[in-house]
């Protein structure tokens, strides 16, 4: 992990290789919490990590499409009758 010290109004740049643009993360306010300003090119989504963990779980849930899904769900439901 790269560790960088920054003050308010300072920022870091994450350069995306291949001329795809840069992501800039700016420290807006420092205190017991910090406020960040993030600028990213199109095609990059910025998430709070705890939300992103739910995004991943939701995507995984949306892909629960087995050929025998009905059978699988039926077996699961038997466990809870």
């Amino acid at each position, binding site marked *: 992990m790269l560790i960088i010290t920054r003050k308010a109004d300072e920022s870091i740049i994450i350069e995306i290789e291949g001329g795809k643009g840069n992501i800039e993360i700016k420290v807006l306010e420092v205190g017991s919490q910090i406020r960040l300003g993030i600028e990213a090119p199109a095609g990059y989504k910025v998430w709070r990590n705890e939300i992103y*963990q*739910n995004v*991943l*779980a939701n995507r995984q*849930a949306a892909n*629960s*499409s*087995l050929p025998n899904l009905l059978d699988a*769900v039926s077996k699961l439901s038997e466990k809870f009758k």
Partner: protein
Amino acid sequence: MKYKTRDFGEIDIKDSDILTFAQPLFGFEDYRRFALIYNHEIGESLVWLQSLDDPDLCFILFDPTPLSSFFKPELPHWIEDVLGKGDYICWVLCAIPDDIRKTTVNLKSPIFINPNTRKVAQIMLDQNYPIRFPLIKEDI
């Protein structure tokens, strides 16, 4: 009106059965209209949450009542602003892999439905429940 579904072909869904996500599923912000599809052979412990905007988008929900000895979701005070006043029905999202013994449910961020307003929200609870809770403890 007839809608295409992922797992049940084309089925008739009444306007009065359409659910609208007032606060969308995380990562699925463009999808707001869904319907619950019950399968009579399976009963009511598991239900399909089918998108009405994209036939290929569908989730399996689990009624967490059997987990109520430890799963006691506390609703945020602002839920009335999102879903309207009334009672709320809680479901959790299932992730069912090829090996169904590894099925998990997301207890951290359940789905809450207000049956009166037919509004829905996925809400991340403050409580420290797992995003991937194993549903099955023994072999089936």
